[in-house]
């Protein structure tokens, strides 16, 4: 991402060089015994830190207003404190005003960063809306699956525990969905195609969920749904609807239509059972072949 911001980086470097040149030509070098080490370390340190923040910001964000404000503000803070630090090495005559103006860059930069933070907050609200069905209440970037961009089983277990602890007695349902014969798709068309199926199914499920529901990729070809304020009957109906929606989907691999069907099992997540046990129970219910369960859905009491 740093390539995107090459001009910003070059400008900051030039500003630092200009600072050195300015002090070296207009100021008089102070003798070594007059250097104040505490000031040098604190002001120089601030400049280095601010510089690293500029790099972090630029390397992790696409361009745009928020990035410009944050990175620009931090760069101003960096140049301002660097000038402040140069003060310790060169004596500038008391009548000159330019060095004060340079030091003024620090508060200006802070204002820019504050402004950037404000807009960043707006941006974050928008992003949260997008992520709503993929994460609830807390964010953990390590918990996201690479293929489907959904949270993983670990995140799900924490959410169930959170739900049980925070809202005891409230209804909550847990549904496990499994793609029928997924291994055949992998064998016949390869893992890449299998990944595309997972993505397609993930999208389809997300489109059919309510805002408060959480969809996770449990493991392999299994998806899990956490449905707050939902009774078991309602959850089973919802799972049937989702299975029907996915069944309607047309997935094509090598110019051939691949039918995709789901099996599901649901349970009451509000029960006082650990998430591990609950999920193991659901997984076992899913392993029962559909014919012997009497239908494509299984409810675990």
């Amino acid at each position, binding site marked *: 991402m740093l390539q995107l911001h090459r001009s910003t980086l070059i400008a900051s470097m030039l500003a630092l060089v200009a600072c050195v040149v300015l002090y070296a030509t207009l100021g008089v070098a102070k003798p070594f015994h007059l250097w104040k080490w505490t000031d040098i370390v604190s002001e120089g340190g601030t400049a280095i830190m601010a510089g690293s923040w500029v790099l972090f910001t630029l390397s992790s964000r696409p361009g745009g207003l928020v990035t410009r404000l944050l990175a620009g503000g931090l760069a101003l803070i960096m140049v301002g404190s660097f000038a402040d630090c140069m003060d310790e090495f060169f004596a500038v005559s008391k009548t000159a005003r330019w060095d004060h103006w340079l030091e003024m860059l620090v508060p200006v930069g802070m204002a820019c960063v504050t402004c950037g933070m404000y807009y960043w907050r707006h941006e974050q609200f928008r992003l949260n809306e997008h992520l709503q069905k993929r994460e609830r209440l807390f964010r953990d970037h390590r918990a996201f699956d*690479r293929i489907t961009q959904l949270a993983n*089983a*670990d995140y799900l277990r924490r959410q169930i525990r959170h739900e049980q602890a925070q809202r005891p007695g409230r209804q909550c349902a847990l549904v496990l969905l499994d793609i029928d014969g997924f*291994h*055949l798709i*992998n*064998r016949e068309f390869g*893992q*890449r195609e299998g990944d595309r199926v997972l993505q397609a199914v993930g999208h389809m499920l997300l489109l059919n969920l309510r805002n408060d529901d959480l969809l996770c990729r*449990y*493991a*392999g*070809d*299994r998806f899990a749904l956490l449905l707050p304020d939902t009774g078991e009957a309602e959850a089973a109906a919802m799972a049937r609807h989702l299975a029907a929606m996915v069944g309607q989907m047309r997935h094509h691999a090598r110019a051939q239509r691949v039918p995709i069907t789901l099996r599901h099992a649901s349970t009451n997540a509000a029960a006082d059972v650990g998430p*591990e046990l609950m*999920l*193991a129970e659901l*997984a*076992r219910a899913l*392993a029962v*072949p559909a014919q012997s369960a009497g239908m494509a859905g299984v409810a675990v009491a």
Partner: protein
Amino acid sequence: MIAYRQIGEPSIPVRHQAALLDYARHQEVAHAVLLRDTGLTDRDLAAPDMLLTPHQALQLLANVMRVLDSADTSFLLGQQMLPGHGGALSHALLQAQNLRQALDILCAGHARLCPLLTPRWREEGGLAVLYWTDSFGAPSQLPPLVEMHMTAVTAMCRWLGGERLPWRYCLNRSAPAHVEQHEAHLGGELRFNCHLDAMLIDPAWLDRPWPRGNAMAAANALAGVAAEGAPLVPSLLTALYDYLLDNIRLAPTLEGSAAAFGVSPATLKRHLARHGSHFQAELDQVRAHVAMQLFQMRGYDNEAVAQYLGFHDATNFRRSFKRWTGLVPSLLRDALLRS
């Protein structure tokens, strides 16, 4: 004299690693990362007949596992592993008529089909057991290797048998954080802390015909295997395990084993050390496995097992067993029988 193969001897054709290499490519693992510490170059991997040492194969796997750092890597690798790219052997597996024949082919051809872990299967006391032992001494890689190989057999049987087989799994490890992967890729019947990596199934499934099975084609493929030349000799740890298993009631010693392998005791010691092991550890492992098998499949009690293994009395046996497994026999026996 029993011949054996060591961790540093080139013996695994690159083409047998195709599943791993494909997966690494698919996941966009950089070549430099993939080849780190293997001493291999891109050109080596492009030559399908180039032979890798088991050490290099293990290192390739370790590199992929480390860079992807994802709990499902071993399982996804397992999905693609069997029947594999082992020529006539893989072809024979593909045509297997039933589970029994598939297991026979797998165990007989393990040096080519799954060189890093050795499968063994037996049927006794109303139970068929397929269990796995380390071929080249990679204890740190054992958990992912076991996940990978168990997934491979499970997925192959499910595919060729046309349905999910009701395997039960015993794993020689504590319950992992990523147990959902085991549930999704293996099945719900999982037991951890087992001191043995084994897959159990009702023997009724052994002879149920598989829809793709073809007796003629399987026989032809097996004849092709014989025509491909002499089979690979087993790895040192595998050969030693088999030797100890055959002689377990005769109180095998390092000296006796070395003589059977046609090397001096010092050489055998050195070769074992190269695989991160020593004679006593191997002997203890075999004795623990035999004891567990007697408990589970024949319903022996301590006394009977002690006598079978040539211990003076049950107390001595109990003490030794505790040293091998960290558990007293009664605890483990109860746990085994409960299933």
